[in-house]
């Protein structure tokens, strides 16, 4: 009986607020972070977890995350058993510069020493707080702050590690920077709050990967990650996010990008794992003549839910934004696409495109799709389209009539459908490897 009473008491104040009060300087980071964190907790307290009554969360119920124990991790996992982390990466065969985080904490032992290139700064956040505090003070949390999102607020309150990538003017980074966030899954409710900051100055270019994976501990965990991007004038960023966490885990991620004049930002999302995953992608097109491509593929089965929620904010004229999301849904799984395009009054000559296609492999799979346009300018081109369909039986018969067995024919069609997304990855080694990953997944 006692425990029941305690249980009720516990939920009057959300544990995420209570635990915050127990944090000390070791957790909070530099002094200037403290007010930012406090206001984030206040924002969380104010907003609370979203419910399906919130328009932006209509299709995705996060009550299971709310009920989950909350154990923010500040210590990395035990390294003794973790030598296989790099081998678990879906990109193990690709030549990348790896930064490995175990249970949210940077592991120097498992990471590559970034090549020392003039104008390229790649570090873990804790080191960066010491070595470059002014830079962090200028950027970190600045782009995500405006979002009244409980998960973003929680990340800001609790984050303790992540990657910092700073590319100076006109530097083209040849190496693929590869962040691996591995969850050991040893403790129920273990929660990590990775926080990444990527700033690319004018004329510079970089390709980077964020990869989330589980090491098989089996406990239910939550990853609540944020990445902030600043893409300078004429700069180019290709960003690939791979989410392949254990199928009982929860994954929420925010991507906030501030895009300057004539830049190109391509962000690809591959959602394969987790029981529930949600990506909040917010891009601000804040200079003329830039291009923003958001491109995603989700492949789900069982009772998985994969949700992508985008807000593309056209603030300046002559910008192109394209969103392409394809889902392959099996079992009772669900794919959610919610894309909002906001075209502000001065953003004339905007060309905004949105496409969401879903392939349902079973009678019980569901796709929810909600394209949304909010246009205040009068000379713009905005299109959106969504399709939900099943395997094309005529195409399967055609392939079979040429001798291709049924399972192979199905796989070829699924692979072609996935290929529409994978083919947009410009980095050839990433594209080829992910194409293989998808092909292998479709076999199962």
């Amino acid at each position, binding site marked *: 009986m006692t425990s029941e009473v305690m249980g009720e008491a516990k939920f009057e104040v959300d544990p995420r607020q209570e635990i915050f009060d127990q944090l000390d300087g070791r957790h909070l980071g530099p002094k200037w972070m403290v007010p930012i964190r406090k206001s984030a907790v206040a924002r969380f307290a104010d907003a609370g977890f979203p419910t399906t009554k919130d328009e932006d969360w209509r299709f995705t119920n996060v009550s299971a995350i709310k009920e989950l124990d909350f154990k923010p991790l500040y210590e990395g996992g035990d390294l003794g058993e973790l030598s296989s982390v790099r081998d678990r990466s879906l990109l193990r065969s690709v030549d990348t510069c790896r930064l490995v985080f175990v249970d949210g904490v940077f592991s120097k032992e498992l990471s590559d020493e970034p090549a020392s290139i003039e104008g390229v700064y790649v570090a873990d956040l804790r080191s960066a707080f010491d070595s470059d505090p002014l830079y962090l003070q200028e950027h970190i949390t600045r782009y995500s702050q405006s979002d009244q999102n409980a998960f973003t607020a929680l990340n800001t309150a609790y984050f303790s590690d992540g990657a910092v990538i700073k590319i100076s003017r006109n530097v083209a980074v040849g190496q693929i920077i590869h962040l691996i966030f591995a969850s050991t899954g040893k403790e129920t409710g273990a929660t990590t709050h990775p926080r990444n900051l990527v700033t690319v100055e004018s004329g510079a270019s970089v390709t980077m990967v964020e990869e989330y994976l589980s090491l098989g501990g089996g406990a239910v965990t939550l990853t609540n990650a944020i990445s902030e991007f600043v893409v300078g004038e004429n700069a180019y960023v290709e960003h690939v996010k791979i989410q392949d966490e254990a199928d009982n885990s929860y994954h929420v991620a925010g991507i906030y990008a501030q895009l300057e004049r004539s830049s190109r930002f391509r962000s690809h999302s591959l959602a394969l794992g987790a029981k529930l995953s949600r990506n909040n992608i917010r891009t601000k097109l804040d200079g003329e003549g830039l291009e923003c491509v958001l491109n995603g593929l989700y492949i789900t089965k069982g009772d998985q839910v994969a949700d992508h929620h985008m807000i593309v904010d056209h603030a300046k004229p002559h910008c192109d934004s394209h969103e392409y999301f394809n889902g392959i849904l099996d079992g009772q799984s669900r794919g959610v696409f919610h894309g909002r395009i906001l075209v502000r009054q001065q953003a004339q000559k905007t060309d905004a495109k949105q496409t969401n296609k879903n392939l349902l492999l079973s009678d019980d799979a569901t796709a929810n799709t909600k394209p949304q346009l909010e246009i205040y300018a009068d000379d713009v081109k905005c299109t959106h389209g969504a399709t939900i369909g099943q395997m094309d039986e005529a195409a399967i018969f*055609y392939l*079979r*009539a*040429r*001798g*291709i067995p*049924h399972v192979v024919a199905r796989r070829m*069609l699924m692979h*072609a459908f996935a290929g529409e997304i994978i083919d947009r990855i410009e980095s050839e080694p990433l594209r080829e490897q992910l194409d293989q990953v998808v092909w292998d997944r479709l076999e199962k």
Partner: protein
Amino acid sequence: MFKIQNLHAGVEGKDILKGVNLEINPGEVHAIMGPNGSGKSTLGHIIAGKDGYEVTEGTMDFKDKDLLDLGPDERAHLGIFLAFQYPVEIPGVNTTYFLKSAVNEVRKARGLAELDAVEFLKFIKEKAALLELPGDFLKRALNVGFSGGEKKRNEIFQMAVLEPTFAVLDETDSGLDIDALKVVSNGVNQVKSPERSQLVITHYQRLLDYIVPDFVHVLYDGRIIRSGGKELALELEERGYDWVIESAAQPV
């Protein structure tokens, strides 16, 4: 080699084929003609093994195997080929890749080694030239954006590549102009050999000037009501179908 006996088949309880008998020996070319809705395409689909048809009576054998027990891919492995009346567009599946998969699946089923990439490419380029297909089409997605004529040529090209022992050509001539028809017919005739047979389904006698049949059959209301030599096609061209239908309806 190929034998149909008393075949009855339909869709959702509606009979389409009502007792078809047909026997085709190695090296023979048979033509099936008949008015719209007589069951010609259904017969082609059933030979290839398309789902959705119910065979209620009769048999269909190929090289002493019961075809009705086999899926479309297994029939293709045995050497059956259907040139589609309406070839399907398949976005995202590259034509070369598709052909390579098809050829290798057929070879695998016959216990042959897979072709290596260089050999294969050389082989299909020769065949493509035969059908006068545009140079880039091997790189394009299967049938996507192809004109009607290109799609038909692609069908015969695939036949030339897969070298089937028994090919069914379902209205391959429909929609082709005379020049394209010559190219397609030439492709078909190149594949001909004493071991290989063809069943040509068509509306128009014109095709049979180029692909000369040994036998012509008239299919009407789900039955073959008359069979003859190639001169029957000419007679049909001249007189239409009514006289055949009427004479079939007369009591013997």
